[in-house]
């Protein structure tokens, strides 16, 4: 886990420096919006030496790592002139709120629709759900977002185009972000449920005279959820990735939009911090998934 974090940090660090455009120059231009042309050579050099940007990359990287481990300081923003940790703490709640709500929607809607669809296998409602979710998994998130804005904000005027704070503001971004996950979770749930319902222990439970709802809730659900949980874990990852774009579109003040802004400003420490935060959340979710999996399947618990 630590190794993963380290690798991801190194990768972002070097990738950011490969992108064309001198860091110091861009940072300066960003701070002096409107006066870009007046940036002088001395100013660039001044910035460069202040942040040691002329040192070789690996030295910069190890300096950053050392600082991070020894003092817990992961740098200071070039643009905002504030500690990165402070910026992250400021933006994190919004992202957690958006991603969390989207995930809850994905789990509740995806799982219940998947079960419903499995129980209605090959009936009309099953076919309709499958076609709809096929669109769900194949449409890119940003496109869904624009479509939702077009329909619900501009045409129907039911929800604000963008913003943060109230429940209304949450509605569209959460819908756009979760749609893909809802569809993906629904599809695995359906398949997994169908497979589970064909198992012999389901037949034996029927032979015991149990009603269908007990068979589904007690015998099928837990078994069928095992592969679904894995997919939910992966979805959480793609959800955090998707949040970067969705936050930008809806001007949602989370880590995602901070990341996009700081990439275009070459605000390296902030980029680094955002990536670190997202990856940490991702790993944390995977840890939870593993725990849950072990909890549900006694065959893993007792070997």
């Amino acid at each position, binding site marked *: 886990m630590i190794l993963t974090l380290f690798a991801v940090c190194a990768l972002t660090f070097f990738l950011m420096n490969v992108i064309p455009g001198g860091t110091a120059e861009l940072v300066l231009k960003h701070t002096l919006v409107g006066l870009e042309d007046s940036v002088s050579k001395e100013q660039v050099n001044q910035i460069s030496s202040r942040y040691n940007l002329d040192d070789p990359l690996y030295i910069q990287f190890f300096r950053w790592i050392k600082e991070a481990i020894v003092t817990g300081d992961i740098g200071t923003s070039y643009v905002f002139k504030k500690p990165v940790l402070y910026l992250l703490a400021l933006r994190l709640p919004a992202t957690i709120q958006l991603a969390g709500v989207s995930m809850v929607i994905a789990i509740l809607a995806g799982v219940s629709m998947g079960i419903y669809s499995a129980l209605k296998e090959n009936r009309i409602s099953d076919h309709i759900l499958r076609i709809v979710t096929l669109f769900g998994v194949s449409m890119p998130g940003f496109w869904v977002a624009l479509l939702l804005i077009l329909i619900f904000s501009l045409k129907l005027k039911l929800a604000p185009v963008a913003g943060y704070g109230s429940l209304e503001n949450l509605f569209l971004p959460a819908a756009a972000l979760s749609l893909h996950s809802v569809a993906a979770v629904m599809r695995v749930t359906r398949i997994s449920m169908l497979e589970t319902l064909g198992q012999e*222990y389901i*037949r*034996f439970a029927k*032979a*015991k005279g149990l*009603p269908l709802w*007990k068979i589904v809730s007690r015998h099928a659900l837990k078994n069928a959820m095992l592969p679904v949980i894995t997919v939910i874990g992966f979805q959480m990852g793609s959800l955090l990735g998707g949040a970067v774009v969705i936050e930008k579109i809806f001007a949602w003040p989370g880590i995602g939009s901070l990341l996009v802004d700081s990439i275009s400003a070459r605000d390296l420490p902030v980029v680094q911090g955002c990536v670190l935060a997202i990856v940490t959340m991702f790993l944390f979710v995977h840890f939870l998934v593993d725990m849950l999996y072990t909890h549900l399947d006694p065959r893993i618990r007792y070997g």
Partner: protein
Amino acid sequence: MSLLEIRDLSVEFPAGENTVKAVSHVFFNVREGETFGIIGESGSGKSVIGLALLRLLPANANISGAVLFHGQDLFSLRPSELRKIRGKCISLMPQNPAGALNPVLKNRLQIEEVFEERGIDKKEGMKKSLRLMKKLLLKDPEKLCDLYPHQLSGGMRQRLVACMSLSFEPELLIADEPTKGLDPEAKEGAVELFTKIKKEYGKTMLLITHDLDLALEVCDRIAVMYAGEIVELDKASKVLGTPLHPYTKGLVRAQPRNGLVPLSGQSPSRISLPEGCLFHERCRYSGIECFRKHPEMKNHKGGWIRCHFQSLQ
């Protein structure tokens, strides 16, 4: 009087353009208190009969005919009425105990639920089950209840499943291949188990097996199945002692203690059944008639046999 009467039961499964004829025109009845065996090689349709009785086949199965239990047609029952029969009046001991136990639920819950939906106190039921488990040669039943199925041995799982199927004291027990996949020691245990069930409960049993030793040991009457049809039906001692039908003869000769002479050939494809007798390709007594005409079941000295030449043998 017959407890169970099966009339012209046929089961087909759609397979692409074709249909698989799993069971064709099966008639038999099971008398109260008797143990009725169904034997035959793998794929002959034994399990499908057992599952069809309780309407446990997959939804795509095409079932025709009638199954009368106490004179009541099980195929015309509403789902709620059927649930009252399942597990209470007729219970099923499935073919594969390992697959029949839910891997993520503790054994206790899976035993207890037999008593659910029955207006019976679970604790009372559990006490009964524990007593039964002791009788069925399971040691330390209390502890066993707190384990998961995968923590038991094959023989123990078998007994546990047997206990689940018996603890409600059903009028009819359908046991599907109770000895399949067991090691010789556990197999002996299973024979002992069934003799015990039979003696102590006097229950009516439908025993599906291809273990002829077990069948001879515990069955009163036996039906022999070949390619979805019954080819011979009579007292167990007669069917296995002095078999009449050429297929049954082959089965008996293939037994280890009779020299292990295997039946040559394979049973016919169930999608396009051959004309004439279904067994004629493998039969060493076959004559011209056997290729042309499908033999009907005929009464012969108190038993039933499906062969053109039954009187010659």
